[in-house]
């Protein structure tokens, strides 16, 4: 790995991505406050247009709250394929400048442009060309941060939004970080920020002055990372698309239309989520043996329980059965508003080979169902209890392009 001094890293962040795509598709939304949200009755804002932000509307806010803040707000239900397609086209643009493009999420990417500088005559020119090409091809804007590492490149892109370009040079790092609030650093969330505040640390400059042994004593390994972050140090490489390490877990969660008390009703959602997880696992040739069930009560208290098996599993009914064993062991103290199911301890290409005829038949049945659903679409064929199951699609945070997705041009 090269040291920071030799690297030029870029962070490309699409501006209000989902909302901007919707404004592009429907010109009537252009220049107006728009939010994109999920389909449920108690959905949250997935993206807010820049026109909606002055009202205090931001991602993650419950929709009813957003509407209260801006009664003229235009609400669009998320349509994931539009955003996936736009994201792939952005990726196609980025890969025209360097093969070292890491897809961080559906609307963010890191580029290591160190090897492309001579060819394109500098990092700033690459950034301008990227912004221009994305605007020309998709009609969307993005903000770009350029820095010696990913940590600072991400910080830089957030400094000048929308449609901005910010460069952080080596010599600027100490003065930039001196007064920077710790929460603005990528990786320091609200909870860690609160701990630091309790220690009297509010800025990266203050954090940098704390001896590393004190941070390590308080936070363990994270303390070492905090010590480096406060100095703007980060050795993490850009992991090119298609070479990412294997997934460690896969899951889905769902906020329910209304709070549910009864375990029987919760069981239906657990089955639906288990089936979605199973489909994703099998499509990427994974199997797993730790089932994690996550529940959130109506007061937003969230917890997870897990169960690890001796064998690897891949199907919805198997995941559901284990998740139900977990659920049976929980005494619910309140109504539930969110259910999540995930599978961890994953391996690739190691589905259990059934020994007994009954198991073999069940496996063959699942594979046959997969073939039908691959051909005609999700939930065309499903288990009896899931009649009328979820048809809309979701983007998990771990979304990455699949083989064959990349390099698709404009239709």
């Amino acid at each position, binding site marked *: 790995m090269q040291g920071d001094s030799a690297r030029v890293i870029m962070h490309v962040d699409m501006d209000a991505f989902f909302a901007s795509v919707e404004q592009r598709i429907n010109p009537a939304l252009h220049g107006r406050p728009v939010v994109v949200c999920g389909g449920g009755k108690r959905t949250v804002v997935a993206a807010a247009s820049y026109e909606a932000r002055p009202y205090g509307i931001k991602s993650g806010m419950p929709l009813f709250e957003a509407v209260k803040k801006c009664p003229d707000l235009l609400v669009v239900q998320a349509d994931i394929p*539009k955003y996936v397609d736009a994201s792939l086209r952005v990726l196609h643009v980025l890969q025209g400048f360097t093969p070292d493009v890491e897809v961080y999420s559906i609307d963010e990417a890191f580029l290591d442009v160190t090897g492309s500088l001579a060819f394109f005559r500098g990092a700033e020119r690459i950034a301008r060309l990227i912004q221009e090409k994305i605007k020309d091809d998709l009609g969307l804007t993005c903000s770009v941060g350029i820095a010696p590492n990913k940590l600072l490149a991400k910080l830089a892109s957030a400094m000048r939004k929308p449609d901005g370009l910010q460069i952080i040079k080596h010599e600027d790092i100490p003065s930039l970080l001196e007064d920077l609030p710790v929460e603005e650093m990528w990786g320091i969330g609200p909870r860690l920020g609160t701990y630091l505040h309790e220690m009297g640390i509010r800025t990266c400059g203050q954090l940098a002055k704390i001896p590393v042994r004190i941070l390590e004593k308080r936070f363990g390994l994270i303390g070492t990372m905090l010590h480096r972050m406060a100095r703007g140090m980060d050795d993490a490489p850009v992991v090119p698309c298609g070479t990412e390490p294997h997934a460690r877990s896969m899951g889905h969660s769902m906020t329910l239309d209304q709070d549910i008390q009864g375990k029987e009703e919760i069981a239906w959602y657990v089955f639906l989520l288990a089936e979605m997880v199973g489909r994703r696992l099998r499509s990427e040739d994974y199997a797993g043996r730790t089932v994690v069930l996550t529940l959130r009560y109506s007061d937003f208290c969230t917890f997870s329980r897990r169960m690890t098996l001796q064998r690897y599993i891949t199907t919805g009914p198997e995941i559901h059965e284990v998740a139900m064993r977990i659920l049976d062991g929980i005494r619910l103290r309140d109504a539930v508003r969110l259910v999540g199911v995930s599978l961890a301890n994953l391996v690739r290409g190691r589905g259990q080979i059934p020994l007994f005829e009954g198991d073999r038949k069940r496996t063959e049945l699942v594979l046959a169902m997969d073939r039908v659903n691959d051909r005609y679409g999700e939930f065309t064929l499903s288990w009896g209890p899931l009649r009328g199951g979820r048809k809309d699609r979701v983007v998990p945070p771990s979304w990455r392009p699949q083989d064959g997705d990349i390099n698709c041009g404009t239709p």
Partner: protein
Amino acid sequence: MHYTTSERITVGVVYGDQRRIRPEWFVWEGREYRVTSINHIWRDKIGREALIFFSVSDKANTYLLCYNTVQLEWTLCGVEMEG
């Protein structure tokens, strides 16, 4: 005002260079609509059927057209009327 539908329509298309498709006009309920701008294009799949969606506008409204590349069918999926 948004109007959602799913109606088979006839579309006049130019197949250009770089395998690009450009709808020029379409007929809906016996009336011809001239496309003045293509706002956005995206792809989707239902099972193995690849679909291409076009958000297009004429002088008054915005229309969502869908081309099913397997069935070779065009569908009008929605109309966004001004006002």
